């Protein structure tokens, strides 16, 4: 009971002269209570020992599991052989692995891997963003609320399926009709193609397959923030546009779309920071040897070529490359979002 009543700041109709000043007043009171800089004294730490007991072990835990593994980066400068024992008994080779990965035969392969990662991510990002915006606009036009809710729940559902399941579904959907490939069946029934298409053996289709499968899984989920942004648009704007004779499309184009533009821009910027970190499972499961030239991404390279074939050192170099680029991209994306004066989404 109380859980529901305390959540919004309750404005009590009490003796206060102006009830609306209640919230800002409390905020400012809290601020004045806490001066921005406080000297950390032993007394203060002692007084807060309970909070410290809560936090410090978990901070140490986080450092151990998230930062300490960086000692493994030493492998990038070694010729790591698991047989030699721990990381301290290895042969040091300087920048040999970096040269090895970025030049020569490996260099060609790695360049292709980076291009694949970027291509799949960018295509996924563009298709996903456009799809989510269009779906949010269309859902917003549905005035029958129960129907709208059913549609939303159906489109959110694939987000909760695992990538393994989704990859299995995609593998079936894209196979031959005899293996249950209903996409081929549909294309044949509609006489769009005469022969079934072997989608998963055509390198040129692979990026599209990744983007399409991502779209299927995340389309509904990605509309949530856009739908929320749409509800924040003032109804007065729509009323004013109606008085001026604006139709449905005009209102969509001139009010709704500009209204969610800040959200679109922020999400695009933030997501572009993750461009090297996405796309692992689909290329891993669907990318067979025939389409490897278009399928292999950095993460797949690290797992297949590094972990499973024992080329640890090269895989660590590739991983370092990915992390460093990702940090640069995320950092600049956050800065760009701040420059645009938007709140940064975590």
């Amino acid at each position: 009971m109380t859980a529901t009543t305390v959540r919004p700041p309750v404005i009590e109709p009490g003796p206060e002269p102006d009830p609306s000043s209640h919230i800002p007043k409390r905020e400012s009171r809290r601020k004045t209570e806490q001066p921005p800089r406080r000297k950390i004294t032993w007394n203060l730490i002692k007084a807060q020992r309970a909070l410290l007991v809560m936090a410090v072990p978990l901070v140490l835990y986080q450092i151990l599991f998230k930062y300490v593994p960086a000692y493994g980066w030493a492998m990038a400068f070694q010729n790591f052989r698991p047989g030699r024992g721990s990381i301290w008994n290895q042969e040091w080779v300087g920048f040999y692995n970096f040269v090895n990965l970025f030049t020569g035969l490996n260099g060609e392969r790695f360049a292709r891997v980076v291009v694949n990662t970027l291509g799949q991510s960018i295509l996924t990002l563009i298709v996903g963003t456009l799809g989510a915006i269009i779906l949010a606009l269309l859902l917003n036009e549905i005035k029958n609320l129960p129907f709208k809710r059913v549609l939303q729940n159906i489109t959110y559902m694939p987000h909760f399926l695992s990538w393994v399941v989704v990859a299995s579904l995609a593998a079936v959907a894209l196979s031959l009709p005899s293996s249950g490939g209903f996409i081929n069946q549909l294309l044949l029934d509609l006489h769009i193609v005469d022969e079934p298409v072997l989608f998963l053996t055509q390198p040129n289709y692979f990026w599209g397959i990744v983007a399409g499968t991502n779209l299927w899984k995340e389309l509904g989920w990605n509309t949530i923030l856009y739908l929320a942004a749409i509800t924040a648009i003032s109804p007065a704007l729509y009323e004013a546009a109606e008085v001026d004779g604006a139709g449905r499309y005009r209102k969509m184009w001139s009010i709704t779309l500009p209204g969610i533009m800040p959200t679109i821009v922020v999400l695009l910027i933030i997501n572009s920071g993750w461009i090297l970190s996405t796309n692992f499972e689909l290329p891993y499961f669907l990318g067979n040897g025939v389409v490897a030239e278009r399928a292999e991404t950095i993460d797949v390279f690290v797992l297949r070529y590094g972990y499973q074939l024992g080329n640890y050192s090269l895989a660590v170099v590739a991983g370092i490359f990915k992390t460093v680029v990702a940090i640069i991209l995320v950092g600049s994306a956050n800065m760009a979002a701040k420059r645009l004066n938007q709140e940064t989404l975590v």
Partner: protein
Amino acid sequence: MTTLTADSTTPRPDAPRRRRKRWTLEQTIFTTLNTSFLVLLAVVMLYPLLNTLAISFNDGSDAVRGGIGIWPRVFSLKNYDVVLHMGSIYQAFFMSVLKTVVVVATNLFFTSMLAYALSRSEFVFRKPITIIFVLTMYFDAGLIPNYLLIKDLGMLNTFQAYWVPVIISAFNLILLRTYIKSIPEEIIESARIDGAGEFRTWWQIVMPLCKPTLAVVGLFVAVGSWNSWLDTLLYNSGEQWLTTLQYELQKLLSSSMNAGLDSAQTGGAAAAAAGGGQVTTPVALRSAIVMVAAVPILFVYPFLQKHFVSGIMIGSVKG
């Protein structure tokens, strides 16, 4: 509402009425198109799962003929019979459930405790600790260094490798902290005055108030844990009893993707006889395992879906 009386007497409202009529026609067309499109989209979202469900209940050798829609043509429980008699699937199901329960419990406990500490504005190390955690959303040492750490800690092929590395996620931490901050300070102050310490305030005052958000975070964590397979592959693939459902499914998927391309070209006719009168095929078997792996999520989903939109919204506002 009152135009009925107005337009019969004065000519002025005529123009708006005509316009409104045209608008209504346009609206009808648009609504029809829009509704049909969205219904079609819903079908596209549901069809792959319903199709797999139908194939999983269909006789394997019959399924090879193709053309099964959303209803089995030759009904058979053979696929499930075979799947449920694979010892590994039972074990994997049990391990997936156990792992998910332990991960959700430990993750909610530790994340909410730290979120409470970080929500206290008087806490001196609030800022640096928050930064340490937020940075881990961006910094990743990489797959092999993480593997090496687990190995050096002696956690390879142990149950601990499933839950110990994931007791806190930075994103959920920020989400919960933001929510706890929104709890009126007066409630926490009154708990203090009544003599409650920090642990008691967190456990008995703040936690009950966070139930809706905890439900959302718990859902995200549970889905993430249930759906993960890489941890099994990297850390625990050496022990059969530690196998999980998603891992078994991905093994099946990988092998059929690698070996199945030739058989796909010859029509997938390589039907593996599995004893008894009826046969089952790799595709039919995989369909059954997909359903076993997906159904628990789809079963929990309706109960929690009303919460998660609010959860996303809390997470999107940086505190």
